[in-house]
Each structure stands twice: as structure tokens, then as C-alpha cells.
């Protein structure tokens, strides 16, 4: 494999500045609707604000990789006297919680940094500046890129196994 210089996109999260309005969730789900902006639904958002106002917990978390299994151990964090529930900082779409799953299909969601936009739209909509955008360049080994369908299929394969999936596809294509 060869190495290339790659642009790394980064969202800096200043949780102290979060006002808990969830505009990030709204705009994310609207941007990723098909057609674009035709609907919105925070449950489809790839960023969620973990909120517990009475404990002053305001924590925007982004959807990362799908994982088929739960973690063996769980962690609770206490920072500045505030206790964060287990999994609060985790980006994974996983079986242990309902976060980052398409509400209809249950398929995992993943933040794509709003690809073609100047900056992720959650950043644009965060006037509180809890979310800010940064870019930097990094040396990277090249990896094959997966398209959206492949990402979904890969998740299904991990969940159900390749054979089951192929059987299902065969059955579906017969129904025509």
C-alpha cells in the first residue's frame, strides 16, 4: 500500500458551551434526508446530545463505527463532580443501546462530516460554538473506500452472517 497526504476533518466539542438546543440533531437529520432537507427527525441524526439538565450533563456525541457486540466492561466517568453514565462518550452504534440506529431499519448511522459542505452543518447551526470545525493534513496509508450500500451491507453481514444475507437477497430478488 502507498501512503498519501490526507485531509483529516475534526469537530472540536466544547461541552461547557453546549446550551442543549439540539439544533445539531435537527440539521443533521434534515441534511441526510432524501431528498435533502425534505424531512427531519432527530432520531436519525448522527450527532446526539446526551442531556441530563438537572445534573448539568450536556454532551454532544457523534456516531462512529458500528460494532456487533457489546463491550465486556462499561465505564462511568466522574469529571468535575459530574457523573456521566456508562457509554456517554462512546461513538459506537452497538447492541447495548438505541443510539445511532435508523429508527425504521435499525441499521447503524455514522457521521460523514456532511461530505460536500464547507463544514459539517451541525457546526454551522451551533451558534453557541460548542461545536467548531478544524482540518489538518496527515500521512495516511490508503485503504479501499466503501460506498454507502457497502457500509450498510457490511453491517448486516456482521450482524447476521454472509450466508443469511445472501439467502435474503436471493429471496427478495425472486419476489421481484
Amino acid at each position, binding site marked *: 500500500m502507498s501512503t498519501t497526504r490526507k485531509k483529516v476533518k475534526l469537530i472540536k466539542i466544547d461541552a461547557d458551551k453546549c*446550551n*442543549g*438546543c*439540539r*439544533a445539531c440533531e*435537527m*440539521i443533521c437529520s*434534515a441534511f441526510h*434526508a432524501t*431528498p*435533502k*432537507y*425534505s*424531512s*427531519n*427527525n*432527530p*432520531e*436519525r441524526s448522527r450527532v446526539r446530545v446526551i*442531556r*441530563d*439538565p*438537572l*445534573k*448539568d450533563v*450536556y454532551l454532544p456525541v457523534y456516531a462512529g463505527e458500528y460494532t456487533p457486540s457489546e463491550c465486556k466492561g462499561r465505564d462511568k466517568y466522574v469529571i468535575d463532580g459530574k457523573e456521566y453514565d456508562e457509554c456517554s462518550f462512546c461513538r459506537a452504534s452497538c447492541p447495548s443501546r438505541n443510539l445511532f440506529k435508523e*429508527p425504521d431499519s435499525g441499521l447503524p448511522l455514522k457521521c460523514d462530516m456532511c461530505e460536500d459542505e464547507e463544514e459539517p452543518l451541525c457546526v*454551522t*447551526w451551533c*451558534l*453557541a460554538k460548542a461545536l467548531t470545525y478544524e482540518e489538518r493534513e496527515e500521512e495516511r496509508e490508503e485503504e479501499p473506500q466503501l460506498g454507502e450500500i457497502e457500509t450498510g451491507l457490511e453491517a448486516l453481514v456482521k450482524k447476521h452472517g454472509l450466508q443469511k444475507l445472501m439467502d435474503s437477497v436471493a429471496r427478495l430478488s425472486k419476489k421481484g
Partner: protein
Amino acid sequence: MAYAETGFNLEIDLTRGNIERVATDPKLTRLYLGGLGTNSKILWDRVPPEVEPFSPENLLVFGTGLLVGTPAPGSNRTIVSTISPQTGLMAYSMMGGFWAPELKYAGYDKVIFRGKSPTLIYLYIHNDKVEIRDATHLHGKGAVETQELIKKELKDPNIQVAAIGLAGENRVFTASIEQGRSSASRLGIGAVMGDKGIKAIAVRGTKDLNIAKPLEYMKLCNEVLKYISDREEKPVPGVMPILAGLGSPQEMLHTDEKWHTENFSWGNSRTRRKEFWTKEVEEKWTATQEGARTRLISCYNCPMKCGAIISLPGMSTYMMKCFSKLTYNMAAFVDDLEFGFRIAQRATEYGVDGFSTPQIMAFAVELWDAGILTDADFEGCPKDNEGKFYWLLDRIVRREGIGDILADGTHWAALKIGNGAEAYAHNNIKKHEQLPLKLGMLNPIYFLMYCTGEKSNITQIEGQFPQAPFPTMEEREEFVSDWVHVPDDKFKQYLLDWELRGEKSNPYYPTVDMSVDIVDWQEKMHYIDDALGICAGLSSFPLKPPYHIHNYPKFISAATGIDMDEAELSLAAKRNRTLLRAFNIRRGLTRADEKPPEDHWRKRFPELEEQLLDAYYKFKGWNNQGIPTKETLHELDMDYVSADLEQRGFLP
């Protein structure tokens, strides 16, 4: 497919325990938009004037505004409508927060309650699954506490809960509905909720909300977002801090309270303390506020931070907004701000209106001082001001002893107490307690708003037009230079010519006709907001807001696909305003009720005041008793209203 709205209401019959999902009539959306408009239509159709507030036939409607849950910033309002136990007229209290968008995502525009539950219940809405659940274990629990308990019980932190506290359960006339950082407080709707046996409504929604013209709509939303950002950098000069920016008054952010503490009245709306705000007070109050405030917080999809998390040692955390910060201190004559934050915590858990309740307590203390209430009524009450207020609050929400009488508000309490007590219930409009504001010279614009506002609450009518003239022409010219919000350029001239003193000053300038024009614009914007579910803090309340009469029609068209222009939107606002008026006329509202508190202004002008009211009624298309005429109702497609008013003898 429905756009912006879901096209479905939930009908809950509490007596029978029946739940139905009912499709709405899209024609009504065009005519009444949504929110307050369609709430009022439902109440007009289904609650005849004979129905008492605490009758099973009274409805309690939780409506979302037409644009709620869409990407429009600040579109998050719940409009709760019912008959007020205090005024006997329509109550429509509103709250921001997160409840209304969640209801939209669950697939409903409104929840309509009728009947009464035999035992205390809560409603749980999770998309298509709707359950009436037992709430007897939540009896007496705090309004904030209840929200947390229900989220735990249902094992979902993302559920949004609107709940009442003890005050609502005991049908206290100032009982509120609390939800997150927000509350629907005015006019006793929490009492109606308690009377129906509803402790809370819990909602969770995970469905899509659709937009008719997505790209157009998003462009408008982006413009508004950009405007908010720019406007926040450009406070309006020459007005006090809370009126310079956007949002509801930024009481949680600002610590400078010179204006409120020295211009608003203390006690039972009696005493101005013109030297109150000393350096020492400022330092102490700033430290108290900054110590108590953990974070400034927002409602759903709104960049303004009008609320705050308040946390003080030895009490549970709660959320606060706006003027409740000061109402208890000022009513109780307590100079330590920490008292205000502490008693407001208890009051929020009890679920009471932070405007009326302190005033009722100050009224009681005054009656005690005057000997109209006696030591026997206050047996066991501490002698210090703080102690008196805590004691009274506990009695009122439990309806114990004198608290049972006070729980009906100052108007009804004074009637029951008698012996001259009526003179102490001096700060009411239509039986409802007002802001403790006592001024010198009559302001004709405010006179009309106080008299005719259907909600009897000035903050829900005022806005857009400066409260006072700017002293210099330079300031005025600067102000009007980017005043794109005016419906017509004549409003700029009104402001340019308005002087502090002399011929073109209050009370004769703005002239009668100008005053009517200005009031019409101000209330029109509120009626639009209340139908769309956009927060007044981004629209009708502040100066130069992001939403106005020129961009609103575009928002409605792009969101719903309904063709809307300024003329049609103005007509819809007029329709809603007129329907509320007709509803209240049918319930007994008369011209004689339309007056500010006697002592609101020192300098009064009876002849001018009559002219103002005459001109306002005429402009609205009402007769000189304030009743909408047949012709007006016909123009508004409301012949069904005139037929009813005619049948009941209100119209010839």
C-alpha cells in the same frame, strides 16, 4: 402526505379511558394555521359558554404550532388552551422547551383531553402506542421531580414530560404546567389539568416531519439563523439591556437589575424603591446569581439562552427563566436575591405561576397588616418576610386555612374575605394579576394593549415598536434605517415624530388612529407566532426580530405547500384574533371589563381612553361593545360565529 403538520390529533376521553387518533381537516390549516388558531376553533366548536372550567365537558388542548419541529429556529411552542378557572374566559398559556417537537415526531399535532379521570393518571405517547397509565404513586410529587420519575419509570431519558405539581392537583388558580426549562403558567391551566386527573403527559417520537419545498425552506431557515447571529452582535442602542437583544428578557444572563428593582413596584405592587440599586447590592446580587447559575440553556432548536440551570446547596436543582428571578424578592420585600432563587425552587416543584403567586402572597401580607386578615388566619406563621412567604406558599398549594381562599387569586379571595379587601386586589385586569408596574403618564399604545389583550398579559401583546420615544432625531433615524420589519413605512414616521415631551408626546401622540395601527401590528405578530409555534422571543416580542410579516408567508408556503402571502396571513391572524374575541364575548366579556388597573398610570384621560377603545373596536370591525359584527365575521369566513352570537342574543 402532510407537510409541517402531521395531520393527526389525539383525542383522549378520560372518563371512559378511550384513546383515538383522528385525522384533521386540511382546510382548517389554511384558515387558522395551527397552534392557538386551531385550538380556539376546537374550543369554539366543542365548549359552549355554559361549560364551567372544572366541568368534565371543558376541554384541555395541548396544541403544537404549525411550524413546530421543522428546521425553523425557535419553532418549539406548545399552546395549551382551556377555560380559565380564574377569569372564566379562554386561557391560552404557552411553553417552549422540547415537548411540542417531540409530539410532532410522535405523529400528532395536538392532544385533546375531555372528561375526567376517576384516579390520577399520566398519558404516555410513544409514536403509535398511547397509554393511560396509573399515576397514584406520583400524588403530591413535585412538577420537576415527576418528570424525572417518569423518565426513569419508562427507562428512556429522551422522553419529554409536561407535569403538574401539588398546586395543579389541588386546583390552585395559579397552577402551572412545568416541562424542562419551560412552563405554561398563566391563567390556571395547571388547575384544569389537575381537575381532570392528569399528572403528566410523557411523549417520545421517532418519526419524520416533512417539508413541502425543502430547498426553499432551508434557505429561509439559514437566513434567519444568519440574521440571529448578526443581530446578537448589534444590540439596539438607547434601550435597556433586556430590550436591546433578541430572546425573551435575558434575565438569567444579565445581572444588572437597576431598571426592574427601581422601576417596578415592590410588595403588593405598591412601592417604588428609587435608590435601591447600590454598588453593594449590585456586587452581592451578581455574586449570588453567578453562584446559583450552572449553565445558560435553550429550548429546542433555538440559539438563544433564555433559561438557566439553578443549583444552590441544600436544595434540588431546577431550571428558571425570565422575571421569576425577581418576583418573589420584590413581592416579599426581601433584599437578598438568594431568597428569590430558593423560594422559586419550591414554587417550581409545586408548579405555580411566578407572576401571580408572589402577588397573592403580598396581597395577603398587606391584608394582615391592615387588620382585614387576622392573627387567627396566620396562626403559626413566622414574623419575618421570608418566613411569611414560605408559609403562605405552603398553605396556598395545599389549600389549607387561609391558603384555600388565597389559592383562587386576589380577585376571588378579596370577594370572599370582604371587609374592604377588594381595594387590595388592585393590580388585576379581568381578574388576573398583572406585572407590578405603576407609571406616571398614560401611554395610549399600552392603554389599548392592557385593555383589549385576550390573554390579559402584556408581554404576550407588546413588542416590535419601542416602548418609549428616543430622545434625539439622530437616534430615531438610526433606528428606522434598518427597520425592515414594519408592515408599512408609516410606522417609521410615527416613531420619527414621537417626542418625550411637548405636542407630539404621550398621551396624545401617537394619535388615536396611530395607536390603533401600532397595536394592531403588535398583536398581529403575536397571533401569528402563537399559531405557528415560533417563540415570541425570536419574533413578536423583541425589536427587529428575525421573523416578521414579510418573511413569514414564505416560511408557511415553503413548509406546508399552501400558497400564502402577506394579505392572507394577516387575514388568518385577524381570523384567530376575532375568534378568540367572539369566544370570550360568548362567555360574558364586556367593554366594561376592558380597563387597566386604576392605578397603573397616575395621569389618566377618561375621554381619550374612550376614544382609543372606540377607534380600536372600529378598526377591528367590532361594534362599540367590542363584539365582532356580522360583516366582519362574514369577511373572515366565520358566518358560523355570527349565527351563534345572533342566536345567543349578542348580535341583532
